């Protein structure tokens, strides 16, 4: 008998019907993978299970008993532990406290900091995380914050563990640690719900699957009896081409050359170049310093030493405006805070880097703005009713497309992508990859930072591997194998 | 452009009586006197004022009175100069403007009714200080209101002028309590720390005087340092009884309101300020060439009479 069953769950937000007929069953000791396109309603289901949202209709049964989960506290009492997709991290609190918010260890009613720190350190050690439980969470990178969130899900002996895209910003090694722990928990009788857009992981960790499309369940079963193609067909409703849409490059002269670039405490002595028509992949573990490097190239931070050349000319990228003038664009890894202005419409977001082009004499024209937006929504196939939709209301993948589109519209020479396909579904991922390919064929260059090894191997012409702020290896497409890349990224 | 249509019919004469700010016991007493005079003369008093004692606030209040086409305005000014343009406009529109208590510059009014002359006030306060200092000699200090307060500054200047008559007294410091309790209190404490041999603290504003008295009491200096100045009997009766403020001076605000209203009504009825103007029960007042008329010497209150006036104002 399933441990937890959801039947015929419905949920709408205003006019949006997020779930129409969701069904799911979780079994003790098994890992169930929940898959579906962006916006299929997976996270909404998670929020219903964790007491953040209430279903409009439907029933939840725990061990055969109908339950109402009307508060996050209540979910916790029922033994449901959740790792949310959104960042649920308190920058102002320490790592340890972050892991225990809402459920702090107490001694005679008072918060016991000692116990909290000890238990936090234990869990972090299991996850092989190197950061200090006493460090303020705000000082960590996006990926490290995600680790905190996962750690929070693991602090308690949960009967149901739900993880909504826990691996989206993790690299190979962290994923391994996480899977090790998950297997241990599941062996101890815990039911696990695992949500991911990466099929390798799904097949690696899960026993069962459940597929959502447009808010309704469209299939479930044993993974062993299924295939990747079949899952994709269930998800999307049609087959999706599996191979990376990469066509042979036409390499030109170097567009950007970086020499001996250093920034104290972040990265040291980085040298590389990118040529016209080339996609340079940068791989590394969480905390390798890739994001910092990209931020320096884009003028968000300054380098302490070293030089940057664009088109053979030495440039001092001291501000974003200068970088943009040199034809550099940067799609940040955190689209929610750095990439998009969530309460603004798609059109307004697209307009942001193109203000001058859209209003050459200063006067704004809503018409030109909509025109540009329509064009790119069409090109990148952003799923939306119209360009006046607020970005907040889009699913993750579509948000990502908007962020990429706003920079493509600017027609840059060098596009830096930081985790470009983080959290987006197969279809959208393919669309983004196709855009990258077309982009370099117009004689431009792409620098792609990614923790997704298949993506790195599949899309890059050359692969730069970073570890602890230094370049460890540079592979050509032919030399690169997953073993070699992982070894360069981790090996001491 | 300034010819507004005359209000229709025979209406009682309306006088706008403007206080420095509302919620001030002194002006409540002025209001009382004004109502008394208006009742006798069949006029109507509109008592108003800004929330905080600022010139800008008073201008808003004056604009409202001008729009109502009152017959006369009597104002106690927060700033002698800033009100002038507005009051000039009032006069252009046929409103008789006088100031009382705290003067407006001559261009902005027909006459000013001083409760007492600045000179008399300065002298009275100097005399009080001399009486309170042991053997008429010692150090005195002043807790003023804001540095921009006109009548405070005028009285202070007169006080300085009167001091040479009392060679034993030396004015060691002037501090500003900004007419707020906590700052006045703090400044007074600082005064006695800075000048441990201080004999008399003078404050010419109610808020300042009350705060200074409390500060001296709390510092345990009652009997050693005396406090005096200008204040209302109702506010100071307690301190007179416990000897912190053995005596203080003030003119009668009820009479002031009464007189101001009398004059305003008479001017509105067409009398001229060039001639002596009657104030009925208070006699007549004569305005000098600069339009200033004074009522008399401030009255001194002490343990013998404070109980009687405490209930009145």
């Amino acid at each position, binding site marked *: 008998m399933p441990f937890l069953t959801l039947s015929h769950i419905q949920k709408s937000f205003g006019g949006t019907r997020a779930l129409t007929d969701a069904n799911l069953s979780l079994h003790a000791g098994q890992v169930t993978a929940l898959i579906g396109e962006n916006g299929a309603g997976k996270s909404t289901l998670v929020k219903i299970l*964790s007491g953040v949202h209430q279903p409009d209709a439907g029933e939840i049964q725990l061990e055969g008993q109908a339950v109402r989960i009307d*508060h*996050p*506290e209540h979910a916790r009492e029922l033994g449901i532990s959740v790792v949310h997709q*959104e*960042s*649920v*991290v*308190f*920058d*102002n*609190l*320490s790592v340890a*406290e972050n892991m225990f*918010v*809402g459920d*702090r260890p107490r001694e005679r009613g*008072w*918060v016991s*900091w000692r116990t909290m720190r000890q238990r936090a350190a234990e869990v972090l050690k299991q996850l092989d995380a190197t950061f*200090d439980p*006493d*460090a*303020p969470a*705000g*000082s960590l990178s996006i990926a490290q914050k995600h680790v905190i969130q996962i750690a929070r899900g693991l602090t308690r002996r949960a009967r149901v563990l739900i993880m909504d895209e826990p691996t989206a910003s993790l690299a190979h090694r962290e994923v391994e640690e996480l899977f090790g722990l998950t297997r241990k928990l599941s062996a101890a009788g815990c039911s696990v719900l695992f949500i991911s857009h990466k099929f390798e992981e799904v097949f690696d960790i899960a026993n069962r699957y459940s597929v959502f499309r447009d808010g309704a369940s469209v299939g479930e079963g044993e993974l062993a009896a299924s295939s990747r193609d079949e899952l994709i067909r269930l998800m999307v409703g049609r087959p999706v081409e599996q191979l990376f849409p990469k066509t042979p490059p036409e390499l030109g002269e170097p567009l950007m050359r970086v020499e001996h670039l250093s920034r104290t*405490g*972040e990265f040291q002595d980085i040298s590389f170049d990118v040529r016209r028509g080339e996609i340079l992949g940068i791989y590394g573990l969480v905390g390798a310093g890739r994001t910092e490097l990209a931020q320096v190239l884009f003028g*968000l*931070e300054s380098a302490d030493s070293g030089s940057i050349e664009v088109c053979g000319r030495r440039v001092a990228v001291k501000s974003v405006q200068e970088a943009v003038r040199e034809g550099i664009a940067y799609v940040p890894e955190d689209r929610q*805070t750095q990439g998009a202005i969530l309460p603004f419409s798609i059109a307004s977001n697209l307009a942001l880097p193109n203000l001058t082009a859209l209003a050459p004499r200063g006067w704004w024209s809503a018409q030109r703005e909509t025109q540009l937006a329509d064009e790119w929504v069409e090109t990148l196939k952003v799923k939306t009713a119209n360009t006046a939709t607020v970005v907040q209301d889009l699913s993750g993948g579509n948000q990502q497309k908007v962020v990429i589109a706003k920079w493509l519209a600017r027609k840059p020479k060098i596009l830096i992508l930081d985790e470009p396909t983080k959290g987006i579904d197969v279809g959208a991922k393919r669309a983004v990859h196709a855009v990258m390919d077309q982009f370099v064929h117009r004689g431009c260059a792409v620098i792609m930072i990614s923790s997704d090894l298949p993506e790195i191997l599949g899309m890059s012409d050359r692969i730069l591997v970073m570890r602890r702020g230094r370049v460890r290896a540079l592979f050509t497409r032919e030399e690169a194998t997953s073993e070699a890349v992982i070894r360069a990224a981790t090996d001491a | 452009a300034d010819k507004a249509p005359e209000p229709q019919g025979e209406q009682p004469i309306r006088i706008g009586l403007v206080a420095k700010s*509302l*919620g001030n*016991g002194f002006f*409540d007493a002025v209001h009382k006197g004004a109502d008394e005079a208006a009742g006798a003369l069949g006029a109507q008093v509109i008592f108003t004022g800004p*929330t*905080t004692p600022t010139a800008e606030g008073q201008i808003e209040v004056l604009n409202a009175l001008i729009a109502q086409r009152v017959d006369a305005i009597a104002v106690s000014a927060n700033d002698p100069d800033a009100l002038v343009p507005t009051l000039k406009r009032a006069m252009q529109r046929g409103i008789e403007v006088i100031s009382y208590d705290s003067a407006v510059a001559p261009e902005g009014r027909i006459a000013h009714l001083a409760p007492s002359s600045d000179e008399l006030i300065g002298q009275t306060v100097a005399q009080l200080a001399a009486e309170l200092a042991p053997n008429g000699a010692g150090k005195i200090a002043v807790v003023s209101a804001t*540095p921009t307060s006109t009548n405070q500054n005028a009285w202070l200047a007169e006080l300085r002028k009167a001091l040479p008559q009392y060679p034993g007294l030396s004015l060691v410091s002037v*501090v*500003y309590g900004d007419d*707020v309790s*906590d700052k006045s*209190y*703090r*400044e007074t*404490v*600082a005064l006695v*720390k*800075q000048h441990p041999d201080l004999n008399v603290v003078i404050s010419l504003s109610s*808020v300042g005087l*009350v*705060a200074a008295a*409390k500060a001296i009491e*709390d510092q345990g200096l009652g009997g050693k340092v005396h406090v005096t100045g200008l204040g209302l009997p*109702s*506010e100071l*009766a*307690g*301190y007179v*009884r416990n000897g912190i403020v053995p005596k203080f001076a003030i003119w009668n605000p009820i009479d002031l309101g009464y007189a101001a209203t009398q004059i305003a009504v008479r001017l509105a009825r067409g009398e001229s300020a060039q001639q002596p103007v009657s104030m009925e029960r208070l006699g007549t007042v004569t305005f000098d060439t600069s339009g200033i008329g004074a009522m008399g010497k401030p009255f001194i209150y002490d343990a013998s009479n404070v109980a009687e006036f405490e209930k009145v104002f």
Partner: protein
Amino acid sequence: MNASLSAASRRDLVFGILTVALLAAVSVAFPSFASPANLADVLNDTSILILLALGQMLVIVTRGIDLSVAANLALSGMIVALLNRSFPAIGVLPIICIAALSGGVLGAFNGLLVWKLRLPPIVVTLGTMSIYRGVIYLLSQGAWVNENEMSREFLRFVRWDFVELTTLSWLAIVVALLGFIALRYSGAGRDMYAAGGNPTAAQYCGIDPGRMQFIAYVISGALAGVCGYLWVARFAVAYTDIALGFELQVIAACLIGGVAIAGGVGSVFGVVLGCLFIGIIRNALPLVGISAFWQMFINGLVILAAVLLSARQRERKRSILEAV
């Protein structure tokens, strides 16, 4: 103090040093300023500010702001002053309870509007600031309540002293200690920091940020109410305009003390230091013989220097995330 608070406590440390330096500078100009008796006076004089700032800190930590504290103080002060005038026999303890209750209710009104209707805190408290002031005028009909109308006990309570410090100082010390313990070791205290740091995330963790704001407003209001009694008893007078504009000093003390206006950050220690810093300046300036006309200017310079110095303490790393 553990390392998780390192950034904040480092700032407090820098600020503590600044405060001591200020004290030293004043003592050079006016040697007896550093005498225990004088420092006790400074603390007594700063106590009301400390109490109000501690309440305000809670409100700011939960992402609110309370511009109505001074008006709340004045209204609660007027209520107890009027009560005391009409019923001089009421003891001090009931008076304090009534003051706290009245302040708490006024605070709860702010809190409810912010919590239940999700109105912006600045708008709500700007509105109630005017309303509460107006109500004092209506209650008192613009008249003063004077010293001779207050009972002995009413006045004496705040003046009782024990080892040089009066009730005022002891209250501030006790409330600061309780505040420290509650904010560090109670679940509700930690929830306030969480709710202020990231309200959305707090909701996912089962904390209602609106409720936390409500609690903060009630506590801030109750403290303001008690301060209303303390103020009226200390200065022995109650009228409409008491503590007019004091809210800005309270907020300034919090901000100087390192409370982040964006919420989630602030410590009892920092706020007390911020208050003492202001207290020292305003007690010292009249003593060191600086012209009254220059006092405000110098006050502004010192405050700016302090905030600039402590703002510069930020880490260089990840500055883009802090560029808000």
